[in-house]
């Protein structure tokens, strides 16, 4: 009886190990076998992903294709609503998500995030002639333009409690905030990383302060069990970063950050 029980226990353990290992190893071998990486995204967020008349473009789209090329894979995109992205991944409809998704520690029981490829956190914009402002502490006694009610406004108010003489100047749009900077009515503008870089790209006379004010990392997402796939994606990102291709893709859609400039 005891021997039978031992045999049963060992069998169950082996079965569980086989199922576990098999489950973890399934996705990457299947991708290799089929030669296709299935990527889910919500194509409603320019300049990261947008479908205009059936043509899918954006930073994330280019990055997915670059990863695919690096890994020797075709990339198949599937569209989902923003709320449905994680469910689509969990239910195996796609292999990975690449859709300007912020790393969320609360989801790491079920999902794994790649190394970040973009920081969408708040950034500081100044006039090009301004050299004394490289970070928030440099704004003591200065005027900071923000978009009324935005996260940058909340952050600026928090800094105003720490920095003597920091004046927070709200404007109804990000465009008005940077116009105030260019006109000399404000010393700097605090913006989210996406809007700020778009304005930086499109507005002559602006520059990016050296330090990011907050960190909001965008990353690819895979199922937590797909460790092999995650390693492949991270290795690919590292190669794209080292070759300068990641910076080039970012610069194609947004103004390059100072770190990306340094890298180039």
């Amino acid at each position, binding site marked *: 009886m005891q021997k039978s029980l031992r045999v049963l226990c060992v069998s169950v353990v082996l079965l569980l190990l086989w199922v576990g290992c098999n489950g973890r190893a399934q996705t990457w071998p299947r991708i290799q076998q089929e030669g296709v990486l299935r990527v889910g995204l919500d194509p409603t967020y320019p300049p990261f992903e947008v479908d205009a008349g059936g043509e899918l473009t954006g930073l994330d789209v280019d990055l997915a294709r670059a990863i695919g090329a690096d890994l020797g894979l075709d990339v198949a995109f599937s569209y989902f609503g923003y709320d449905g992205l994680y469910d689509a991944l969990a239910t195996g409809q796609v292999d990975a998500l690449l859709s300007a998704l912020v790393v969320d520690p609360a989801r790491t029981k079920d999902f794994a995030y790649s190394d970040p490829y973009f920081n969408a956190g708040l950034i500081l914009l100044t006039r090009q002639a301004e050299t004394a402002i490289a970070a928030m502490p440099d704004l003591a006694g200065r005027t900071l333009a923000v978009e009324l009610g*935005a996260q940058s406004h909340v952050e600026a108010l928090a800094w105003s409690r720490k920095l003597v003489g920091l004046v927070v100047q709200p404007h109804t*749009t990000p465009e008005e905030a940077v116009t105030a900077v260019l006109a000399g009515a404000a010393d700097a503008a605090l913006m989210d990383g996406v809007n700020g870089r778009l304005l930086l790209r499109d507005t002559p006379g602006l520059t990016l302060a050296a330090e990011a004010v907050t960190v909001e990392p965008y990353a690819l997402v895979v199922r937590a069990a797909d460790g092999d796939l995650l390693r492949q994606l991270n290795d690919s990102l590292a190669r794209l970063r080292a070759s300068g291709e990641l910076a080039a893709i970012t610069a194609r859609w947004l103004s390059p950050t100072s770190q990306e400039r340094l890298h180039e």
Partner: protein
Amino acid sequence: MRRPAYSSGLRLFILALILTFIRPAPLLVTPGPPQTVETQHPILGVHTRLTDEVEEWKVKHSLELVRQMGAPWIVEFFPWAYYAAADGGYAWGHPDMVVGHAAAQGLTIIARLGLTPDWARPPDTPLTYLDKSAYGDFAAYAAAFAARYRGQVDYLIIGNEPNLSYEWGYRLTTPADYVALLQVVYTAVKAANPDMQVLAGALAPTLEPAGSPWGLNDLIYLQGMYDAGAAAYFDGLAVHAYGLTFPPEAEPGPDILNFRRVELVRQVMEANGDAAKAIYITETGWNDHPRWTLAVRPAQRIQYTLAALEYAETNWPFVRMMAIWAFRFPAPQKSYMDYYTLVTPEFVKKPIYDALQAFAQETSPAAPTTMNENPGSAGVSPAGADGTSALPFLKEQ
């Protein structure tokens, strides 16, 4: 030479004893003296999310901030699945805490009940799955809740957005099924607490046609409710009224989802002879997520929210209250949902909170002192680059 084992044990025991005595006493949080809400706009409410808030001081502080903002109403969720055991026992500790603190702050509570415990639903069904065979169990919970909080909670909402399939257990949603639920629950609640006001809904604004796997148009659904005899089983109607990308004054239409869709809901009530009942807008607001296609800019969100409150006060005598979704989440959602809130998980008040507070107190939300919290700074008026006011909507107040 080895020391006896009991010597190490004794040391550990003494250390534990010392630590026990030097450990600081747990934080004592009490409701405190009764407060009242000072407001010029008694229609203003918020949907709090205290269900998953563990720490009592955070519950208390959230409700203090609600009162200080000038909102006399809260809508809060009290899930059946959290508090009810299969043996008929209830764990009232958390709801007691929330209700006690809300009452101490002088807030009127609309309690939303829902979510089915696993013992009351078939295996592998979601929390929103409520089978007819469990209607009686749910009614027993609702009745127990109504009896326990008599005098502290005066309104109950039965379920949430029953016209959406995912709120109906990912099944085809039918008005008749929901009315059957209302009938059982209404009867049990009234028997337990005749003063309790039972609200139906809250209906989700949607254009889904009949037969859609996602849900059913709220106007069609409401008419279906009346056709199934719902009128006798609710005292008021809860609705959700989101503005999405439209301003609050935008004309309503049967094929449009906007804030004034409430007027179409009202027409259905009137057409069914139910005009004596009030509407309670238990979720409303605009979202200012930078990427969501149904969001607006943050300044627009403030403008639209204040204008919506004024519009409802002026034009909708049948609306008793409007609860802005959502006051605060216990933790970041890392999605567009974070951009509905008025206060961050860290209790940082967003500018829209300040604007609503100023609105409730009838002071100017544009006042520089409210926009710049640095007491050492001179502050500036919110201004456009051309020197004109960047907040034209504030002039209208």
